[in-house]
Each structure stands twice: as structure tokens, then as C-alpha cells.
């Protein structure tokens, strides 16, 4: 019954006026950027990160979380109406969702997506609440060696699940790790790789890096490749699915929730796989697979549920182990650290109101999304017609004000511009920069744990293999890499990510 008293505490926190308002703002902003092609949750959260400084940590994280799962919702709206996945995870929804829209069933597709997401969100919230306590207990048993191996495993998953070439994803992780070593060494106080610039003595500022690479560089990328928008001109039609639609989508929705939720827990951005896996499963077990791709409602209900469930269970590694599974969660780590909270198992005992408040807010947020999204669809469609030539100056001014406000340091804006150039160079060279951020955030933690583990073991690397949990994690890491590098698998992987 502990879970219920904890959840009650959480709802108490989440239902305060301020937190409700923040949750609402987060969901609204999230939906907005999910709908607008060319602005993703990574960019938005990095832009809004500095603005949350004035808030208390719980409120700030509630809002940032709202942006994240709100964006998953919004992403499906563009996928259905415009055939552009607002987010990477909505790619599959374009297949059947847009077909439904073309057949004049856009409203039903949107409704199914929203309701499916809501159901998935509810389940995921319960899963997080139920798994939170036991996983945290387990995490307390983890020594530095286990943590190090866990992070290695997470990074291996991130490499395998990244979009594009595995080799290049590997490069990005390593580069992120390398960048994380810039600054003063914590143990000896020696400056490392700083070029003697005093501003770098504290290391590269997280928000400067994130905003440069995901704010500025994304703008540059989008300016170069204007997206063709093929907005459905047909009527959206009624939103609530009829009885037969519901009957058809209940099981896909539940299966999707299960698949997405399970994959989402995986370190290294398993959530991305959820919609793909769900779609494949639905297509396999369907009586008539040929309907898929031509507007099958199961092809919307399943992946959309998987998508949302995964987005939420991705919080589990972050909240219980303190290890971010993907770039967005890496930003959450940044947000927590800025507010003086060290992510990890101790969060639950030391800041129970933050932990449970955030979980409760996710459920409330899902309800809000259902309520805001459906009636406001018309508005979102209108927003799609805002041309990019107006959108990016607005993004830019937000970035500038945000980055200035981090330290009230005008120089930071120039630094961010430099990282923008760096990010643009990465994009030009065919690198996908998301894993870099993950490596950057995990780098410092990894170094600390590695040092501790080696001090305990008196300098013997065998410690990572002697301890059973650590050895198991490393084994999984190696297995994942080997499987992904097998020629037959790498071909399949390409198919999944190019579909």
C-alpha cells in the first residue's frame, strides 16, 4: 500500500495550483512544438531550461516533462495531417494515419491517437510508480563498478538505436565523452583541454552546448532543407471514434502500451523502437495485413500507444538510477543538476515530493493533453501554416534570451553561436548529434565511477568482470554491439530506420 500513499503524496504536490499551471503550460508548449515541424523537444527543452531557473525544482521538472510527452502527442498530429512526423517516434504514424486522413477520417485518426496515448500514459504512470520503489532499492545495491558498466551498456544501446550509421553514432558518443572531460579535474584541480580560457575552467556549459547544437544548428539545417507541407485540405470530420473503431483498436492499443513501455525502460533510447515494433507486430497478427499502409486504424492505435508509453517509461532509468537513457533525459539531468538535485536513487528518499509529484503530474498531464488536443486540433492545423521564415527568428530570440539568462553572461551567447557552427559542421558531415549530448552528460559521471571502482579494486580492471551484476551488464553491452554489427542485422536496422 506504500505505492498508494506515495501516489497520494504525489497528487498532493502535482495538484497545487502552481504545478497544475506549469503542467498545463508544459503540455501546451510540448504540443505546439510537436506540431511545428523543425522544432523538436530537445531544442525546446534546451531553450526553456534557463527560464525554469526561477521555479522550484519540482515545478520546473513537471513543466519540462510535460513538454516532452506533449511533443509526442503533437508529433502525431502532424504525422496524420501533414504526413510529416513532427517527432522521430511518429514516423510510423504517417503510414496509416495520413492515409486515414486522405480518406476523410482524419478526425478519427487523431482521436484514436489521442485516446490511445492517454490509455498508454495511464498504464505507464502506474508502471513507473510500481517499479520506482523496487528499482531504487536495487540501485542502492549498485557500487561504482555496476554504475560504470550500466552506463557502458546504456551508451552501447544508444549507439545501436541511433539513427544513421553505427560508426558515426559511436563517434558522437566518444566526442561527447571527450567534451565532458574539458574543464577542471575534480580530484587534482588541474585544468584540462581548456586552451587556457578561464570561461572553460568549469567545463563546457551544458546549456550552451545543448542550445548551440540543437537550437542554432537545427535552425541552420532547416533553413537549408525547406519541408514540403502537404496539409490535408479535406475536413477533419468527427473526432471520437465509433464503436467499431474502438473495438478494432483496443487490443492494438494495449499491446502497443506493453511493447512501448517495456522498450522504453531500456537504457539508450529504447523508446524510439516502440512504435516500429508495435507496427510490425500489428501487421504480423492482423487477419488481413494488406490493409496496413492504406489507413488501418490498428496502425495508428498501436504505435501511438507504444510511443507514449515508451516516452514515459524512459523516465524510469533517470529517476531510479540517475542515468539518462536518451538526449531528452540528458537534458532533464541538466535541469536537475542546475536546481541542485543529483539524479539517482537518493532522489526518491531525499526529494519524495519531487519524485512522486512528477509521476502524478504525468498522469494529470496526459489527461490535459487529451482535453487540450482534441478540441484544439483546428488551431494546430492553422499553426502549421506559419512559414518557417517567421518561425526561426522567433526561435532565435528565445535562444538568445534563454542563454543569456543562464549566467547573465553575454559571452555565453557568442559561445553558443560557436557551438551552433560546430553543430552545423557535424550535420554537414552526416553526424546525428543526439548521442553526443548523452555522452557529454554521462561522461563526467562515468569518469567518477570508473575512478572510484578502480580505487576500490586497487587498480584492477577485473573488478568489472568479477562482480556478477557488472559482468552481466557488460555482457549485454557486448552482445548488443555484436548483434547490431552482424551484416544481416545491420541491414534490417537500416530498413527500420529508413522506412
Amino acid at each position, binding site marked *: 500500500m506504500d505505492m498508494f500513499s506515495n501516489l497520494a503524496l504525489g497528487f498532493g504536490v502535482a495538484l497545487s495550483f502552481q504545478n497544475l499551471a506549469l503542467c498545463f503550460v508544459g503540455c501546451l508548449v510540448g504540443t505546439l512544438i510537436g506540431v511545428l515541424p523543425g522544432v523538436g523537444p530537445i531544442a525546446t527543452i534546451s531553450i526553456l531550461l534557463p527560464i525554469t531557473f526561477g521555479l522550484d525544482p519540482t515545478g520546473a521538472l513537471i513543466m519540462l516533462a510535460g513538454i516532452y510527452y506533449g511533443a509526442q502527442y503533437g508529433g502525431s498530429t502532424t504525422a496524420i495531417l501533414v504526413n510529416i512526423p513532427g517527432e522521430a517516434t511518429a514516423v510510423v504514424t504517417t503510414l496509416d494515419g495520413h492515409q486515414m486522413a486522405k480518406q476523410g477520417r482524419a478526425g478519427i485518426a487523431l482521436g484514436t491517437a489521442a485516446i490511445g496515448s492517454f490509455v498508454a500514459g495511464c498504464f505507464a504512470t502506474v508502471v513507473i510508480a510500481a517499479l520506482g520503489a523496487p528499482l531504487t532499492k536495487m540501485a542502492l545495491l549498485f557500487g561504482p563498478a555496476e554504475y560504470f558498466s550500466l552506463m557502458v551498456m546504456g551508451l552501447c544501446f544508444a549507439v545501436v538505436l541511433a539513427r544513421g550509421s553505427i560508426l558515426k553514432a559511436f563517434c558522437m558518443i566518444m566526442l561527447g565523452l571527450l567534451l565532458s572531460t574539458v574543464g577542471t579535474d575534480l580530484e587534482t584541480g588541474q585544468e584540462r583541454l581548456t586552451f587556457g580560457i578561464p570561461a572553460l575552467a568549469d567545463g563546457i556549459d551544458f546549456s550552451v552546448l545543448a542550445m548551440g547544437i540543437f537550437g542554432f544548428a537545427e535552425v541552420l539545417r532547416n*533553413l*537549408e532543407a525547406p519541408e514540403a507541407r502537404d496539409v490535408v485540405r479535406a475536413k477533419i470530420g468527427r473526432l471520437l471514434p465509433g464503436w467499431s473503431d474502438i473495438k478494432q483498436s483496443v487490443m492494438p492499443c494495449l499491446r502497443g502500451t506493453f511493447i512501448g513501455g517495456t522498450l522504453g525502460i531500456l537504457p539508450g533510447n529504447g523508446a524510439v523502437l516502440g512504435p516500429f515494433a508495435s507496427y510490425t507486430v500489428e501487421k504480423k497478427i492482423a487477419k488481413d495485413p494488406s490493409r496496413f499502409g492504406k489507413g488501418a486504424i490498428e496502425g495508428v492505435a498501436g504505435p501511438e500507444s507504444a510511443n507514449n508509453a515508451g516516452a514515459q517509461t524512459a523516465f524510469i532509468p533517470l529517476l531510479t538510477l540517475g542515468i539518462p537513457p536518451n538526449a531528452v533525459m540528458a537534458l532533464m539531468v541538466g535541469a536537475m543538476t542546475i536546481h541542485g538535485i543529483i539524479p539517482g536513487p537518493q532522489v526518491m528518499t531525499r526529494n519524495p515530493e519531487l519524485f512522486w509529484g512528477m509521476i502524478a503530474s504525468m498522469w494529470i498531464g496526459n489527461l490535459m493533453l487529451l482535453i487540450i488536443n482534441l478540441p484544439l486540433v483546428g488551431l494546430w492545423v492553422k499553426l502549421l501554416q506559419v512559414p*518557417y521564415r517567421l518561425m526561426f527568428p522567433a526561435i532565435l530570440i528565445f535562444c538568445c534570451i534563454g542563454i*543569456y539568462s543562464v549566467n*547573465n553572461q553575454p559571452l555565453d551567447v557568442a559561445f*553558443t553561436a560557436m557551438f551552433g557552427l560546430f553543430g552545423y559542421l557535424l550535420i554537414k558531415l*552526416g553526424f546525428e548529434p543526439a548521442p553526443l549530448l548523452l555522452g557529454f552528460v554521462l*561522461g563526467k559521471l562515468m569518469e567518477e565511477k570508473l575512478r572510484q571502482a578502480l580505487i576500490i579494486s586497487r587498480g584492477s580492471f577485473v573488478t568489472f568482470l568479477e562482480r556478477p551484476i557488472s559482468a552481466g551488464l557488460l555482457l549485454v553491452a557486448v552482445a548488443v554491439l555484436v548483434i547490431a554489427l552482424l551484416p544481416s542485422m545491420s541491414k534490417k536496422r537500416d530498413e527500420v530506420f529508413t522506412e
Partner: protein
Amino acid sequence: MSLNKIERSQGLRIRSTQDLGAGVFMIVLAGLALVLARDLPLGSLRQIGPGMLPTSFAVFCGILGLFLVITSLRFDGEQLSGWSWRGVIFVLGAAIVFGLTIRGFSIGPISVPSLGLLVSGPLVMLISGLAADDMKWKELIIFSVAMSTACILLFKYALSLPIPLAPWLLGI
């Protein structure tokens, strides 16, 4: 696989300038990091020194870069595409102008007073707006003014961030 073999028999040549560039980029960065970290003590495994991780990460980066170079010589891939300097100059330039003017600066004989958000805001949007191919002056000016006003209301008043508004005019 057979296709790859045929290609391989045709000898090594640059098949993907993008991958080649990426590899060289990684190697250059790794080299830079190695040079910068050369004086840092590596320490021993028992007591890792400050130079150990930067050096090993740099070595890994270099090796990965080498792999990329080899890949680019053996397998076909994307080619490098040209830079759009227009975007780089106006977008990043706008950000730098913001950094320089928000609180003012003085380098040698040049000095700019602190212009504050009231001026820097529209300035950023106007300069960056020039990066779009389909820019329209009237629309951009109206939007810049409206957006800056909204930002001032949001950041200065609603969120009360300590950002200068217009010290030269209002004293805040």
C-alpha cells in the same frame, strides 16, 4: 556482399567525401585533444590521473576517425554538400550581435553602450530574418516588433529575469 567485393576490386578511391570529411574531422579533433592533454599526468590504474580519460577518449576518437576514412575509401556513401553561408552568417551573426549589444561592450576604441532587450531583441530577429530566401521586409519588421514586445512582457515582467531592458532610455 558480392557487390562490395566487386567494388573493392576496383581499388581504393574516395567513394564518400562526407565520410572522408567526417573521419578527418574526428582525427583532427583527437589530435587537438592529444596535444592539449600531453602535459597532464596519466596516473596509474590505481590512481587515475587527470590526463588518463581525455587521452584515452581522444585515442578512441582518432581510431573511429580512421575507420571512417577507411569506410569512405571502400564503400559508396553521401557526398559533402555545400554550406549555406547565408544562414551561418545571418543566424549566428544575429546571436553574436545580441551578445555584444545586450549589455554593451568595448574592445579597444570601439564601444557600444548597453542597448538592452528593447533594441537587441528586434535586432536579432531582423538580422536573422535575412537568412530566409523568401524574406519579406514588412512582415519581418512587424513580426520582430510584436515578438520582442511579447518577449519583454514574458521574460522581464512575467518571469522577472534580470535582463536589461533599455538602460540608455529607461535606466533599467
